[in-house]
């Protein structure tokens, strides 16, 4: 796999470049498919694209959230994976996400019912929501969200780079401060992004935990990604990053915790709406619980919670990158399923839908994203050598 020892310089192995090239090819192939889809079935294109976009964004945004959390808590667990997170949540990847948002911005009329003037005019509730749900405000807010993430990714990346150069110990403190501010900004912006981009697909329906549900899903995506990256970078006789079982155990525990919290948020929303049984809210679950999407719901619970939960209970599985990898792949698929479950029934409540574009979109966006991610991995040493806690993190048994 990785040819040539890194000799403690923690440089990316060649396999990273290979993976990046695979991503690029996949991205181009996906793009061709997307173009074909755009030409033939425009409405479906936008729906599938939104799902793929949110899936891809989750990798970056989730990584940003976990990175911010690491800086705030200064936990040793985060030092080992900081560069992976920085590569996933870089101005490069998030900038790509900003560019990739353009089709959604152009497709609002196809995606969002509240952009239809005549529908809004005939509906008292939508008229009431007009000050919030209108195209200029939507686009402005979207730009702000993306800008916030890019700014924090850039600042943390810069601080991290400066730490590599100067070794100034005060930088750790600044990273903590930016981390605290960033965590607040990320939680708020992502909450409202989730409301705007996803929840407003069914503009009458609302749920206050929705933002947190989307956010924890992104955290799951990010940790699954990290687990796969740990396999890529930590394997072989002279691994690029010396991941010890103990480190992987921490990552596995974090992934396990996020999966549980995802289920907790999902169940909380469900039981409150189920018990209240208010028609204003039940619309979200009628098709998902009793109707055409019931099987999808069951599959989601199994694949996003029950199965990973059972698998991650094992201590041995958490301590090996090889054993973690299948769970991570499963969860990355479950992430897509979760988003499909959130988005697709808004357009087709009465029938289950799965279009080939639903797979082309994540292929295209994920492919390009992967390429950019590997560029990030190659850009700098894979461990922050001047991080004051690095020794502690490495020593960590």
């Amino acid at each position, binding site marked *: 796999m990785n040819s040539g020892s890194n000799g403690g310089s923690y440089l990316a192995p060649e396999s990273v470049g290979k993976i990046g090239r695979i991503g690029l090819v996949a991205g181009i192939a996906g793009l061709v498919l997307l173009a074909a889809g755009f030409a033939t079935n425009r409405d479906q294109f936008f729906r599938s694209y939104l799902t793929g976009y949110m899936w891809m964004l989750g990798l970056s945004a989730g990584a940003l959230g976990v990175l911010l959390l690491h800086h705030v808590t200064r936990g040793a667990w985060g030092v080992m994976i900081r560069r992976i997170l920085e590569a996933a949540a870089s101005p490069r990847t998030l900038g790509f996400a900003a560019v990739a948002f353009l089709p959604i911005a152009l497709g609002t009329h196809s995606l969002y019912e509240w952009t239809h003037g005549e529908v809004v005019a005939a509906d008292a509730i939508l008229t009431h929501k007009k000050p919030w749900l209108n195209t200029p405000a939507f686009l402005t807010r979207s730009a702000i969200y993306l800008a916030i993430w890019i700014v924090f990714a850039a600042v943390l990346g810069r601080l991290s780079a400066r730490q590599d150069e100067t070794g100034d110990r005060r930088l750790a403190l600044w990273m903590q401060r930016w981390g605290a501010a960033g965590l607040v900004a990320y939680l708020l912006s992502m909450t409202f992004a989730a409301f705007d981009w996803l929840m407003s697909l069914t503009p009458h329906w609302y749920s206050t935990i929705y933002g947190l549900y989307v956010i924890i899903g992104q955290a799951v995506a990010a940790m699954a990604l990290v687990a796969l990256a740990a396999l890529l970078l930590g394997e072989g006789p002279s691994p690029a990053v010396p991941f010890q079982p103990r480190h992987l155990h921490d990552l596995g525990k974090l992934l396990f915790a996020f999966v549980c919290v995802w289920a907790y948020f999902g169940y909380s929303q469900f039981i409150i709406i189920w*018990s209240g049984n208010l028609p204003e809210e039940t619309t979200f679950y009628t098709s998902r619980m009793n109707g055409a999407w019931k099987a999808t719901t069951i599959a989601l619970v199994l694949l996003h919670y029950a199965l990973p939960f059972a698998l991650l209970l094992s201590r041995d599985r958490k301590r090996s990158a090889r054993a973690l990898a299948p769970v991570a792949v499963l969860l990355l698929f479950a992430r897509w399923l979760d988003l499909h479950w959130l988005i697709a029934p808004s357009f087709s409540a009465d029938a289950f839908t799965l279009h080939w574009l639903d797979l082309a979109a994540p292929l295209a966006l994920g492919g390009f994203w992967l390429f950019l991610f590997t560029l990030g991995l190659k850009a700098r040493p894979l461990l922050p050598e001047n991080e004051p806690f690095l020794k502690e993190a490495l020593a960590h048994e």
Partner: protein
Amino acid sequence: MHGPQTEPLLHGVMAEFRTPEELLEAIGAAKAAGFTKLDAYTPYPIEKVLDALDLHHSKLPLLVLGASIVGAVGVFGFAYWASAIDYPLNIGGRPLNSWPAFIPATFEGAIFHGGLAAALGMLLLNGLPRPHHPVFNVPRFVDHASKDGYFLVVESDDPRFDAPSVKRFLESLAPVEVNEVEN
């Protein structure tokens, strides 16, 4: 193994050390000398001592998992039976099998049983409660075992146990004190 029907006169021979490092060295030496029935006494858990004595195979996690599953299945089963079979009632138009509402109690049932199993299982596996034990017959043990003393005991059911030679062996390790632990 030991033949006699009556309890042996000695529980073992105990040596006290000043630091964890000395204790670790002593454990290493005792193992090298072929002793297998060893126990150490430390005022706080020391990972390396547990490693040296090979004590990392607790059955507790399995016990707790089992108890949690029993608790969850038990509570859900009961809620279902009580609500849908034994006394079916139309409550607010909700279905008899209101499974979403049974989940919180089910979850608590799992935690309740698992938690009790963890605590009781720990006591059971440790042979507690047992208010008295031969090691307490050593005065310095009582004074220091729960403060700052690190003790090693070669127990009398060790096949190579022979009080005088064990004593001599332990004394060679530069302990604070060596004592025979009477039963």
